[in-house]
């Protein structure tokens, strides 16, 4: 019972947190399915459900794997849920007793609206009791979910999260469907804004169906992949299937803007720019292992350099003026120059700074990021970059008459550069330079002793990564057409770092995924704009604690990050489980196993 109670308490506290932050009270009208399932309701039900799921996780106790029987699991889940509900219910009672207005004078989101919603007019104790009961049921459901056989659980899980995903994307999917001129009123209700029940059921069934198919067919594919990995091969092999899949994927990527319309293309364009930034930072942080917290430096440098090279004008409070340095080059001539400028800057800055120890480097790079932001806003550089008013009339990278400012055209421009960066990164990773970086990353002193010139390779990573970042900045300038310093904040460095980390450090598909998730999703889920940073911070912490290798991990880095656990596994496997061999050495000692 104990773990169930603990999880339940944590879940209850989390619910209180969400209520205090406003994620429940402000979303009581956000319909997900029909009018019955709103975001607020979802929160209130999902948290105890997850609590039940977590509480019944198999544990290792005294060297044995403990699992729960379905009945016991349900009980533990129910208890866990009930505790969560009770804790939250106690909160409701407390607020009611203390007086909502008094609590609200401190915690702004604990409002009468919230309380009305939670109690539905009933006395607080009754409401608390109801919450407890609902949570108990949810907890039991969560626990039972885990206990279901795989064949049932996977489709059910898919059905649920796919349906919810479509419910969340209620502002975007209908637009895409409209573009494709597909009848969509049966799926998304114009009145409630969310999914209709009919639509929800259809999606759930389809998702479940696909999941079932995947299980049957996928088992064979997965077995093949696993077998290959065990044999030690590291890359995908060419098979007819993989070629077909790649072509299909390629086709989808290429026609996306036509199909999805300009709004989604606009978001995808930003995703591409940030993916490019991520790829650049990936080289610095992911490949060479340098702690760079000031990547906004290159982003800003690239954007403003491009503007100055292609004849943008400065905004002044009465109109515009020419920057003191202004050339009128074509975009495609300017980009290589931007690359050179960035690389040179990278080398000049890197030279004194890169030999510093990791944490010092982090601080110095952070400082660099701050410095450039201050500089482009400063009155001192107004004649060059326009200060707070910014710059305007940035080139649209036109080829002949064909401009790239339209979101659907820009997508292709950005895609081309992303593809190029992917190519460059991938070639670097598997080249001698990449191996030097790996050596550098894993143990700098040893690498040095082996004759790898650490400073040179660090400089190279910094310069190349910086160059790619600058191109990202240049593209950003083209996309928006204007530059205001507000777009260039230290936060950008942190966001790009988040993309690399979340996606998978050192992993190229990971960076793309990271950008889709961290830039694409918020771009599409505009209702949650206020909570973006909150979710972001939580996501970063969660990823670091639970899955530091990211969503789409790079196998090698994954191994590095879980070195201790892998060593332990190896020790258990080789030393302990081998019959008759007594453990003589401690697990940590065996580095190479």
């Amino acid at each position: 019972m104990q773990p169930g109670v603990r999880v339940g308490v944590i879940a209850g506290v989390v619910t209180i947190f969400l209520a205090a932050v406003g994620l429940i009270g402000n979303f009581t009208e956000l319909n997900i399915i029909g009018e019955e399932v709103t975001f607020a309701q979802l929160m209130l039900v999902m948290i105890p459900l997850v609590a039940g799921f977590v509480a019944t996780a198999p544990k290792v106790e005294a060297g044995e794997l403990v699992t729960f029987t379905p009945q016991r699991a349900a009980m533990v889940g129910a208890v866990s849920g009930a505790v969560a509900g009770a804790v939250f219910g106690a909160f409701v009672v407390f607020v009611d007793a203390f007086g909502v207005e008094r609590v609200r004078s401190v915690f702004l989101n604990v409002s009468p609206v919230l309380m009305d919603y939670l109690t539905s007019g009933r006395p607080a104790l009754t409401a608390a009791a109801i919450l407890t009961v609902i949570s108990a049921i949810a907890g039991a459901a969560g626990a039972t979910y885990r206990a279901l056989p795989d064949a049932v659980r996977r489709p059910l899980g898919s059905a649920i999260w796919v349906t919810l995903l479509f419910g969340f994307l209620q502002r975007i999917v209908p637009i895409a469907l409209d573009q494709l001129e597909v009848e969509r009123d049966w799926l998304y209700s114009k009145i409630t804004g969310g999914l209709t029940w009919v639509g929800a059921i259809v999606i759930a069934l389809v998702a479940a169906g696909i999941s079932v198919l995947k299980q049957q067919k996928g088992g064979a594919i997965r077995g093949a992949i696993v077998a290959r990995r065990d044999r030690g091969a590291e890359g995908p092999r060419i098979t007819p299937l993989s070629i077909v899949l790649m072509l299909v994927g390629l086709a989808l990527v290429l026609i996306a803007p036509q199909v999805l319309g300009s709004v989604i293309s606009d978001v995808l364009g930003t995703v591409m720019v940030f993916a490019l930034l991520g790829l650049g930072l990936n080289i610095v942080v992911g490949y060479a292992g340098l702690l760079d917290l000031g990547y906004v430096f290159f982003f800003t440098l690239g954007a403003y350099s491009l503007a100055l090279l292609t004849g943008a004008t400065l905004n002044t409070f009465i109109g515009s003026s020419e920057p003191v340095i202004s050339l009128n080059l074509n975009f495609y001539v300017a980009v290589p120059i931007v690359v050179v400028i960035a690389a040179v800057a990278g080398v000049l800055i890197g030279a004194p700074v890169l030999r510093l120890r990791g944490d010092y480097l982090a601080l110095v790079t952070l400082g660099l990021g701050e410095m450039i932001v201050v500089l482009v806003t400063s009155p001192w550089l107004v004649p060059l970059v326009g200060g707070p008013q910014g710059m305007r009339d940035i080139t649209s990278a036109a080829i002949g008459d064909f401009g790239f400012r339209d979101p659907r055209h820009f997508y292709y421009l950005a895609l081309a550069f992303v593809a190029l960066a992917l190519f460059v990164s991938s070639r670097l990773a598997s080249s001698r330079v990449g191996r030097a970086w790996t050596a550098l990353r894993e143990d700098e002193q040893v690498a040095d002793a082996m004759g790898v010139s650490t400073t040179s390779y660090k400089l190279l990573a910094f310069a190349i990564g910086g160059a790619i970042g600058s191109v990202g900045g240049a593209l950003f300038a083209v996309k928006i057409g204007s530059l205001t310093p507000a777009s260039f904040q230290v936060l950008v460095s942190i966001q790009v770092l988040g993309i690399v980390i979340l996606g998978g450090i050192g992993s190229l598909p990971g960076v793309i995924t990271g950008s889709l998730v961290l830039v694409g999703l918020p771009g599409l889920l505009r209702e949650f704009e206020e909570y973006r940073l909150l979710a972001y911070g939580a996501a970063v912490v969660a990823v670091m604690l639970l899955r530091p290798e990211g969503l789409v991990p790079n196998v090698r880095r994954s191994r590095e990050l879980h070195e201790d656990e892998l060593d332990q596994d190896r020790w258990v496997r080789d030393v302990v489980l081998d019959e008759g061999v007594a453990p003589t050495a401690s697990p940590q000692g065996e580095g190479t196993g």
Partner: protein
Amino acid sequence: MKHRPWLTVVATVAALALVASACSNDDPAPSGGTDSETAAVDEFGTVEIGPDDPINVGVAQVISGADAALGQDQVNGIELALDYLDGKFDQTPGTLLGHQIELAIEDEGCTAEGGQAAATALAADPSIVGVLGTSCSSAALGVGDTILGEKGILLFSGSNTNPALTSEEAHQPFYARTAHNDRIQGAIVAEYALNEQGATKLATIHDESPYTQGLTAAAAVNFEAGDGTVTAQEQINSEDTDFKPVLRSIAEGDPDVLYAPVFVAACSLILKQAVEIMPDVTIMASDGCMSSDTIKNAGDAVNGVFLSSPDISVFQKGDFYSNEFLPAYQDQFGSAPTSVFHAHSFDATNVLFDAIEQVAVENDDGSLSIPRTALRDAVFATSGYEGLTGIITCTELGDCATDVTIGVFEGPNWPVDGGAKPDTPVYSDTKSLEDVL
């Protein structure tokens, strides 16, 4: 080196992408103009509204984040305008030409990217007749005004004050605003300092936002034209807390007046710190500081601080504002307006509605055809319209608040919650763009 086929594929994408983009389709053309009865050939086409369909009006305001109050205030003003279509404030929207009005609200986030996203979303909807917005000039300048202008969709703002938006070089043909141009406010501040305060030396502080930089630049230019000297023009960061070094530095120049039109957080701190460092210098600020929060945070430091802001007492035309509008606002939204811009947006919405009425062609089947260019022309032709905020006459460059009345209020008698009464301005002047630099 391992054979990596997917690289070749990826590299091909670069080439294919450019080819693909050259073959791509454009957005569907705006709904055709040749079908309707309109004689004019409208290059941006006509918005066709079916007999039972609502008239879709876009709204691009900042409704999330730190500046949300600014945008929400204006959305409220717009909604009140919808309400008032039937001539009374009864919390039920009226109809225009027999059609309901629906608002498509987008969040512009007070940044250029946000403005781009909001404008793109609205521009993609061919049924949008016009857009009321943006809140922040940075979301409009070069971004919102251009994207919407390319589709012939009018962007009509109630709070963009950046002069550049209606300047010769930067003005977009489909952009207009009812908000005052900052050049006017800056000029009146300078005038007040020179004439009423007898100042010969002025120092200014602005922050990293274009709004405050524009205001101080305008004030400085007009102050110098009046034979004054500008001793310092300092820039601070709005998130800083220690302004004592800057203030001390400014104090060395011995100015008579310090004009610091920054926002509440920095403004409160500057007011408090200036009391210690430059007690004899007169401090001025503007709307950004005019808030009950400033009074709460700065306390006594607001005494004797002069704030410039559009003169609300001008709104008392026939007591409409105080007797009908304000109570209606209070009733529907539960609090008093947080800024003056709600009134500007109310006016902009009404001007737009009037223009729609003027140019819309009512077809026999009950549908409407609204030619875009004609709509724009009608708005720009507005002259002598009596709005809440004054007489509205639009210039060719989109400034519809041509005669702007700015009032100067002495703290603590500011017209906000917590301010002392009487909250009438100690100085008020009306200027138009020709009068200022």
